[in-house]
């Protein structure tokens, strides 16, 4: 497991080794540690803007002794999977622009609240709302618990979540609100998370309309 100190050490090492500035976005459990709602994480989820930056980070991490791991173990048959690099109990998941079904958009970049500079590595931490959306996209064990903890700790702006889920469907032929509906419903029922009913209804409606548009009405 990686705690905030360990994460700082690892990112500082990368920053020192980088010859030019690279910006990346931190999502998932790592982002939760920066927001103060998680003590440790299994992996550091990093989203990069382009393949070139991923290659540079990959090279540095391999120099630091990280080894590539089979992505299918964790992300079986999913799209836009990361490059997994592991060293003992430390793991980096390196994504480029998209995290499974979810893409880093300009509106998400505008919502960034925390920026950390590790020499040449500029780390931007996504907002709590966007962490919930990423958690919905990755659906790994523990993602629901993490999302419910965020809901408990922050005054979540649910309109942002709804709008961003619609925004995602414009970028790719995705039915993100359908998955989001399931995710929020489970958070509410199984984890007793405080998700407003009107938001669940709203997301359900959007999802249904999208399904109708794609597959036609049930007769």
């Amino acid at each position, binding site marked *: 497991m990686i705690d*905030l100190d360990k994460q*700082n050490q690892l*990112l*500082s090492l990368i*920053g020192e080794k980088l010859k030019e500035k690279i910006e990346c976005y931190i999502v998932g459990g790592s982002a939760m*540690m*920066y*927001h*103060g*709602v998680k003590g440790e994480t299994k992996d550091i989820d990093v989203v990069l803007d382009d393949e070139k930056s991923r290659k540079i980070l990959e090279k540095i991490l391999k120099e630091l002794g990280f080894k590539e791991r089979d992505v299918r173990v964790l992300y079986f048959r999913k799209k836009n999977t990361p490059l997994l690099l592991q060293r003992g109990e430390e793991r980096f998941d390196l994504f480029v622009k998209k995290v499974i079904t979810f893409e880093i958009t300009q509106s998400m970049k505008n919502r*960034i*609240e*925390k*920026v*950390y*500079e*590790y*020499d040449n590595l500029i780390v931007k931490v996504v907002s709590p709302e966007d962490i919930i959306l990423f958690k919905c996209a990755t659906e790994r064990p523990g993602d629901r618990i993490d999302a419910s903890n965020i809901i408990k*700790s*922050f*005054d979540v702006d649910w309109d942002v979540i709804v709008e961003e889920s619609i925004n995602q469907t414009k970028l790719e032929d995705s039915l993100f609100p359908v998955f989001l509906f399931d995710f929020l419903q489970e958070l509410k029922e199984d984890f007793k998370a405080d998700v407003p009913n009107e938001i669940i209804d709203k997301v359900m409606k959007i999802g249904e309309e999208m399904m109708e548009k794609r597959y036609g009405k049930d007769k």
Partner: protein
Amino acid sequence: MKESIESILRKLEGLNTIDLIERKLNVKRSTAIKKISELRKLGYVETSGGGKQPRFYRIYRVKISKIGNPGLYDIINQNSPIKLSKPFEERIIGKKLSIEEAIIRAIKTENYRVVLAALALFNKIKDYSRLYELAKKENVRRKLGALYEVARRVIRTKKIDDKHLKLMLNAKNERKFIVPHAKSKDFKDIQKRWNMYIPFNKQDLWRLKE
């Protein structure tokens, strides 16, 4: 009945003044001050302002875990009478941002308010040679020279040595705008000397004298 910390944090989350805390918790001023002090000890409060400025209390529902050192906006806010609202929390890990670096970063933002507030940093410069080297690296030497002269018209600053001033004047290939599309009605002599548009008028600078 004593209110739980969680419910107090929920009520107070965000930016507050002491008056606002009194009203939100429906308590006397002395109780509000005591509550803030308790929350600060627990690590939920960040204080800003004070002195001539009103004191603000930013209250978080989760404990603040500050790592690293202050970023550009914090450095400017600590050293300038013109305060900036931070678009995001910026922290520098593993090193401290010097005043010299902060000035160069402020110029690089090309943001009117950031550059204006950063003029106050000119009276804190310790190492002009380092400042020059950073400006050279970022190709902002003429901009730096022009802003230095503007700052000297309003605040006390240490005089830059002739060698570095000359080097800055000889710098080439810089865009003429410090802030895109912003030109001054005043400071014509500085604009001419440095071949650079100053984004401020004289009137904009009065707050630096505070």
